[in-house]
């Protein structure tokens, strides 16, 4: 193993490179990114960075000197054109070609755009994924009075909160019957809806956008029920799709992402995938997560697999979102039909515990870090607290945690 090429200079690609070096790999590592920036944090883009509280340099995951010190050949602003699996080489957009012994695809996901017939070539409509997206939108936002957010998911709601914080009028349109429809229970969705309405965000839930208004520059939208909304800027947050085109063109197996086994290996034994683009085929089904934690974990899993020192992938899904003064922390994987147990800690602090077939599967903690930490640990350990105890606000969470663990050892 002499040459490792990593396509995608995001969190997963960097995590893989760093782990390879930490575990003693001494061969060549090339890290290729199509953005002009070195690997940076994306979560602050829709929060502190947009507000101007964080400059671009502070987004960087490592200072530029780190790459020299660790002999990671970072090539930014370059895309990979093709993968030649037979020749074990990739061709870059600048015409160069690189050989590999192992290739890692960490190509991420891209924001789903509005359908072209709805967009109609209008300007003033933005998706949020890259730093450059924020840079393009910022001057328009500075001049705007009002914003329309299409999509009531995390990105959309965080953007709505930031735009409100900037003093703009904000409408959020969600076509599904609830906010966060794919990922959160009714109780979480309702609490977040209430928070946004309290802060003056106008929510239009269960309403699709039938058309955008404005000739060349967007001026607003018309909804299915005929409501007309005016907006100077439209922000589209309707999910993300894994970037699989390169893998597909190379003939690799694709599912909901680039298909890999529990070691992160694709259908070609010399090619691996990590992060948002990778779909892990596990004993209990396919899993593709979009999160920082998972990008770090899977980047390290792949490094371990390449060096034949790894233990494979154990998913540890967790996620967080900051909206207004709400800190939402989520662990585990919720599914429709889970039984929800509500725990009210104090005013404004509550947690929603998801039980599936009597087993704790997930937790949403709203301004409840202790509940989050306890829920996360119990889920990782495969332990289930008594739902009656969870629902009782007079039972301290620490006692519930200790009792649940003690019950395991008493078995």
């Amino acid at each position, binding site marked *: 193993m002499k040459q490792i090429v990593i396509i995608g200079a995001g969190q997963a690609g960097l995590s893989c490179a*760093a782990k390879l070096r*930490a575990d003693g790999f001494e061969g060549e590592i090339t890290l290729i990114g199509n953005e002009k920036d070195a690997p940076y*944090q994306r*979560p*602050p883009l829709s929060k502190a960075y947009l507000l101007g509280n964080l400059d671009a340099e*502070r987004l*960087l*995951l*490592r*200072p530029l000197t*780190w790459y020299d010190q*660790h002999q990671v050949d970072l090539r930014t602003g370059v895309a990979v054109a093709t993968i030649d699996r037979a020749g074990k080489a990739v061709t870059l957009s600048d015409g160069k070609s690189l050989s590999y012994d192992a290739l890692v695809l960490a190509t991420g996901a891209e924001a789903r755009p509005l359908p072209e017939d709805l967009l109609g070539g209008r300007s003033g409509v933005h998706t949020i994924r890259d730093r450059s997206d924020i840079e393009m939108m910022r001057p328009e936002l500075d001049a705007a009075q009002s914003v329309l957010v299409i999509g009531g998911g995390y990105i959309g709601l965080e953007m709505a909160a930031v735009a409100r914080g900037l003093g703009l009028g904000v409408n959020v349109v969600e076509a599904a019957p609830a906010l966060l429809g794919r990922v959160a229970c009714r109780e979480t969705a309702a609490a977040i809806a209430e928070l946004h309405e309290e802060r003056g965000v106008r929510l239009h839930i269960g309403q699709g956008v039938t058309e955008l208004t404005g000739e060349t520059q967007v001026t607003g939208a018309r909804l299915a029920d005929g409501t007309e909304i005016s907006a100077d800027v439209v922000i589209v947050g309707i999910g993300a799709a894994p970037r699989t085109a390169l893998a597909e063109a190379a003939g690799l197996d694709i599912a909901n992402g680039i298909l890999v086994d529990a070691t992160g290996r694709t259908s070609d034994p010399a090619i691996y995938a990590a992060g948002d683009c990778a779909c892990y085929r596990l004993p209990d089904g396919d899993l593709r997560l979009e999160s*920082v*934690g998972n990008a*770090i974990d899977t980047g390290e899993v792949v490094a371990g697999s390449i060096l034949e020192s790894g233990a494979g992938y154990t998913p540890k899904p*967790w996620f*967080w979102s*900051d909206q207004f003064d709400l*800190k939402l*922390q989520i662990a585990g994987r919720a599914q429709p039909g889970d039984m929800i147990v509500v725990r009210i800690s104090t005013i404004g602090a509550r947690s929603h515990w998801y039980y599936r077939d009597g087993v704790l599967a997930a937790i949403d903690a709203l*301004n409840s*870090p*202790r509940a989050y*930490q*306890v829920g996360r*640990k119990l889920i990782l350990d495969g332990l289930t607290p008594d739902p009656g105890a969870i629902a009782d606000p007079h039972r301290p969470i*620490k006692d519930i*945690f200790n009792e649940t663990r003690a019950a395991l050892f008493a078995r």
Partner: protein
Amino acid sequence: MITIKFIQPDGSEKLVSAMNGRSLMEAAQGAGVVGIVAECGGSAACATCHVVLPQEVFDRLGAPEEHEEDMLDFADAPRQTCSRLSCQVRVTPDMDGIIVRVPTA
């Protein structure tokens, strides 16, 4: 330049240059200190940047906010007297030369 010595979970040491006004986590993460994962990037949402400070530094900083307190209570590495989330600790010039320990989970 402010230099901070991190003792990593395996006992090895790493000297890190830290910038005044930035967080201790940013300094550690930029240098790749083992055990400082910092998944949430400084939102105090993950507790993967848990460190143990020298007593006098801990005392000087004053009490952590309630959210950080709660995260620390159930951090993966057991909380110690001078535990903090390094993302919530701002680097100041008087931290030059201190020794910060990354606890073992």
